[in-house]
């Protein structure tokens, strides 16, 4: 491992390369409104012909002040804001946030709640990876895959809607549980989705995996070495695509992930193609986890019953018991009462490790909430790997990174 990282002086590097032909470099702003920056990322590129000699990502076009908002909201009030971090997998964000705060409160949720959270996290992973896959395909020019995956996502949305009432801004988890139990027959419909999803996924992957044009566009493009991936703090499929078998679901199991059998796909070269393959395989593993979780779905409570001052009491109790009514009022107005302390928890989200660093001084409102967003960390390697590639490669690299500006800028 190198001890010091030098920040390459890109200008000097390319000056060497172009000594024979003195040419003027072109500065191009790619974004913030550009079809392949997936949101409002802006890349300030310096081009030597078609070759990118310098890439300076400019973020913050979607900085909405989530961390500041968190400091002014009770813990439960902030749940909807976590939906809008990685808005492709809100359920997984909800879960990560809830577990972080539960750690602060030293709260253990019952097994049924854990299993529900695993199921929804994995469904969110499928939903997010599908869009990542489709967007990647679209960036390389294969429009139709993009449309196909949306059909599958619609089926997922239907299930989410049945469970939570919203298509993707779900706000389903609460501190100490989930908002409500699974609807009747929902698990069967999830299994039904899984059954029909796998062949369709194979069909979609078939359109790309062995496609000569697609492999030409992606193999060897945007190679990230193992060491770089770790040094730049990459997580999720981007890290695993580089051959680092780090998956927090396996290595720091939370929410009962240790009970489930699944494989962690790992890439070999760390190029865009490997990242794509990892995502494809992860969806299949998610289906595996969902099936196991539903098969062994424990009964019992879906919220921590001992979390009296944290989890709002059930509606029927609120309406019948004075004590519960007061309790409900306290939880809503003051927020769930938390001890003072600092916790950091990160969950393996579709995009990578989504971490919440919660600093509490007690009471119902966090004192400081730092959100460690995977997209932010993943993108930080862009200046390095987007140097010396062709302009079209930048598009392929961005597609393979599968980032979401909502959580990157927060």
């Amino acid at each position, binding site marked *: *491992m190198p*001890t*010091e*990282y030098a*920040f390459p002086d890109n200008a000097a590097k390319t000056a060497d390369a172009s000594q024979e032909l003195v040419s003027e470099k072109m500065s191009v702003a790619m974004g913030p409104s550009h079809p392949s920056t997936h949101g409002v990322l802006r890349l300030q590129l310096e081009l030597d012909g078609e070759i990118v000699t310098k890439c300076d990502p400019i*973020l*913050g076009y979607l*900085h909405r*002040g989530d*961390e*500041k*908002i968190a*400091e*002014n*909201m*009770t813990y439960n*009030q902030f749940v909807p804001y976590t939906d809008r971090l990685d808005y492709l997998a809100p359920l997984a964000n909800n879960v990560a946030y809830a577990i972080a705060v539960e*750690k*602060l409160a*030293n709260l253990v949720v019952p097994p049924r709640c854990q299993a529900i959270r695993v199921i929804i996290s994995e469904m969110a992973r499928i939903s997010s990876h599908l869009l990542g896959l489709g967007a990647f395909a679209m960036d390389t020019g294969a429009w139709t895959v993009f449309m196909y995956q949306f059909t599958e996502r619609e089926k997922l949305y239907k299930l989410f809607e049945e469970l939570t009432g919203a298509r993707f801004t779900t706000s389903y988890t609460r501190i100490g549980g989930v908002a409500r139990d699974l609807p009747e027959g929902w698990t069967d419909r999830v299994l039904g989705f899984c059954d029909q999803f796998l062949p369709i996924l194979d069909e979609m992957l078939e359109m790309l995996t062995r496609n000569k044009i697609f492999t030409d566009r992606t193999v060897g493009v945007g190679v990230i070495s193992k060491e*770089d991936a*770790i*040094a*730049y*703090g990459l997580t999720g499929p981007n890290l695993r695509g580089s051959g*680092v078998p*780090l998956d927090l679901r396996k*290595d*720091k199991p939370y929410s009962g992930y240790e009970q489930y059998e699944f494989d962690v796909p790992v890439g070999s070269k760390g190029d865009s193609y490997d990242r794509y393959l990892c995502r494809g395989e992860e969806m299949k593993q998610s289906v595996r986890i969902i099936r196991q979780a539903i098969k062994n779905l424990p009964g019992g409570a879906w919220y921590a019953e001992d979390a009296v001052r944290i989890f709002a009491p059930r509606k029927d109790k609120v309406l019948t018991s004075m004590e519960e009514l007061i309790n409900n009022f306290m939880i809503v*107005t*003051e*927020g769930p009462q938390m*001890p003072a*302390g*600092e*916790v*950091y*928890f*990160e969950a393996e989200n579709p995009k990578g*490790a989504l*971490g919440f*660093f919660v*600093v509490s*001084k*007690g*009471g*119902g*409102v*966090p*004192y*400081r909430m*730092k959100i*460690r967003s995977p997209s*932010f*960390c993943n993108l*930080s*390697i862009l200046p*390095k790997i987007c140097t010396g590639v062709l302009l079209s490669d930048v598009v392929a690299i961005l597609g393979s990174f599968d980032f979401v500006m909502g959580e990157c*800028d*927060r």
Partner: protein
Amino acid sequence: MSLAPAEVLSALQGKFAQVTARPSGDHPAVNVPMADAVALLRHLRDERGFDFLVDVTGIDWDVDASPRFSVVWHLFSTRDHGYLRVVAACASDTEPSAPSVAALWPAADWHERETYDLLGIRFENHPDLRRILMWEGYPYHPLRKDFPLAGIDVPLPDLEVGEVTRATAAPAPMVGGPFVASTGEMNLTEAEPRAKDESWDERKEKPDTL
């Protein structure tokens, strides 16, 4: 190295006498003087296997607190799958600064820029310390405790557009909006979620600039 906090501390104190334990809800955490921070982090990376810098951030411990700012590093070991939190307090309360670890982990580059942007902690020897989330030239550091959630009126980043549209980055109206609460334990009346608006409410007239 999923060590118990006490073990981590004793192992580190052998080399860095100034390191003290820090209360933590979960992972081992240590306090370190700012001067020793980089040496400690380098030691942790090279000899303790904490090769993954998860996060760099800062905390503003309130306007009157001293030391007011702390910098927090979260480390992770890809080998042993353990976390470690390293916290160092900034010497100055008005011009906080901390050493940059961007040379140890390139990942720190953007995290430090973000901390500088939102909290105003300057990182010495950072290769390119610019704002990252707010625009260049934004005069405030929004995550500081004296900065209101609604914001402070400044011109738009593009002056021309600001001139044409006469829009500014005006304070967000809080009336009827999301009800915000206050942190810490206090009496119910104050902690109760309410519309906290600095600029206008039901009694005061809505300013024209909005």
